[in-house]
């Protein structure tokens, strides 16, 4: 009989995170100050981040202990199960073995909690009483709301007004975890009041919400700011996914030929993949496939450039694969896949030909998600559908050459059923960004 689930005991949960930075050939390039173009130290951000996280951001240690207090909270849902997608395999008629790491079992339904918990912990440990953050649809806001209450600190979430009005269930989730959620722009910050006075009917924007959260953190000694993707320390925290997966694959008596994840900011893909990088560098035959939307081909068609990380051109310059700082891809259906720049760690892995990026169309992704739901019984989040589509492509590529496939099921889609409604009603379309648009955007890259 085929084993369906590989479940680790609590005492088998990893006690250290793995930091891939020191193992990446030719290393990571540092963030640069936008004004001086010099490497940017962590001190400038010490006003809004705890020193522990800034140290992790710059660390060259391969393994960093997971504090016991963090382990205790992670054990609410970790180790997460690894599941053999036998019904999906059967439906595809493939002899390949498809495994997935189910991160949808977290209290908030996605991998985001893996970093929210340690971020809340380190802030609490350094005497911080409140965290402020921004959220759009609410995935990160709900993860941080959950995490902060576990460490007895408050959480203030600035939720973009239009999302606040349209996404009641994420708001309910955050409330349930004890966070204070305000519609942004709010009356609680200088910038919020200024905008409300000038534009009383404004629906808000992510930019305003970020400004409010950072002003909140900057204006109070007891408050810091938190964010949930892209940065090195976030990927460090997410490495627990792959560390568990290695143990589970060993129990299954298997080893992955290919590891797959969807690539937005890169944290969920990297979380599964990075613990396998040392094996790869030791000569193990393994492929890392990062799946991204065809309408936002950051890795697939972008090129490596020392680009600004945001449209404001004010962020630390990060070494990322990007289509240019003013490239904004067409709207597609994956809330988590919204960074035009990729995490520096992921970009470096692409640069070193460790990751093989592929692009997929959104209709095929939803088709894959629906097949997965009907075979494996779990409805995936839209961004997770990308990874499933990637797994299906691999499993059916050469039917006479079966592979062992491992992908990251980054989250369930139970709070995003409206997306499925759009798919079923035929309102979604495939997009493929024109080459000439990308070329035009690339011309605007800053010169270093």
């Amino acid at each position, binding site marked *: 009989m085929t084993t369906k689930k590989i479940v680790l005991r609590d005492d088998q949960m990893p006690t250290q995170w793995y930091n891939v930075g020191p193992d990446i050939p030719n290393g990571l390039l540092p963030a640069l100050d936008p004004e001086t173009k010099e490497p940017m130290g962590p001190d400038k951000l010490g006003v809004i981040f705890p020193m522990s996280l800034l140290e992790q951001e710059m660390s060259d240690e391969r393994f960093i202990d997971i504090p016991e207090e963090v382990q205790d909270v992670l054990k609410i849902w970790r180790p997460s199960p690894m599941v053999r997608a036998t019904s999906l395999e059967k439906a595809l008629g493939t002899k390949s073995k498809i495994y997935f790491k189910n991160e949808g079992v977290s209290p908030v339904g996605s991998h985001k909690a893996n970093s929210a918990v340690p971020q809340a912990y380190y802030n609490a440990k350094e005497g911080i009483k409140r965290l402020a953050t921004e959220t759009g649809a609410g995935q990160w806001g709900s993860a941080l709301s959950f995490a902060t209450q576990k460490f007895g600190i408050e959480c203030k979430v600035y939720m973009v007004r239009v999302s606040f009005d349209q996404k009641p269930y994420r708001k309910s989730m955050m409330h349930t975890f004890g966070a204070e959620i305000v519609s942004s722009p709010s009356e609680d910050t200088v910038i919020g009041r200024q905008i409300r006075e000038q534009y009383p009917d404004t629906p808000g924007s992510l930019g305003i919400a970020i400004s409010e959260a950072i002003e909140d953190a*900057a204006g109070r000694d007891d408050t810091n700011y938190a964010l949930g993707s892209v940065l090195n320390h976030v990927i460090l925290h997410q490495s627990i996914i792959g560390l568990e997966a290695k143990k589970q694959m060993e129990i299954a008596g298997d080893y992955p030929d290919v590891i797959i994840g969807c690539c937005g900011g890169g944290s969920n893909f990297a979380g599964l993949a990075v613990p396998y990088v040392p094996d790869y560098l030791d000569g193990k035959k393994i492929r890392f496939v990062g799946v991204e939307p065809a309408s936002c081909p950051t890795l697939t068609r972008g090129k490596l450039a020392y680009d600004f990380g945001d449209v404001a051109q004010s962020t630390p310059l990060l070494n990322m694969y990007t289509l240019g700082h003013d490239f904004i891809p067409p709207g597609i259906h994956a809330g988590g896949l919204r960074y035009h720049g990729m995490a520096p760690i992921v970009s470096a892995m692409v640069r070193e030909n460790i990751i093989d990026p592929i692009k997929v169309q959104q209709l095929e992704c939803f088709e894959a998600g629906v097949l997965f739901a009907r075979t494996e019984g779990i409805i995936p989040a839209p961004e997770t559908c990308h990874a499933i589509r990637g797994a299906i492509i691999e499993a059916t590529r050469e039917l006479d050459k079966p592979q062992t496939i491992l992908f990251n099921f980054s989250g369930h889609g139970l709070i995003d059923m409206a997306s499925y409604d759009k798919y079923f009603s035929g309102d979604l379309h495939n997009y493929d960004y024109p080459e000439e648009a990308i070329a035009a955007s690339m011309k605007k890259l800053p010169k270093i």
Partner: protein
Amino acid sequence: MITQHDDKEGYCKMLGHFLTFNYCRSVSNNLPCNKVLDCWFQHFAIQEFIDKNYTVEEQELIFTPQKPKIQSLSDILKQAQKRLQESKS
């Protein structure tokens, strides 16, 4: 008419849900989001719409890279500190 596309619906990757075009054309101080061309070019003649409804000066404002994204922390922090200082004095 500037409102002619207001009810059209598109997915906002920044926020993670669907929105009507009305939001996209007014989100930034009553001017369009600077991503409006990328998000709507496959839906209707958005460039034509922009040219018809906004002056060159307004278009410069629209497409000047706007604040912010998640990683523009250093700059946003400086602005916030300045605002807080001014509000106290």
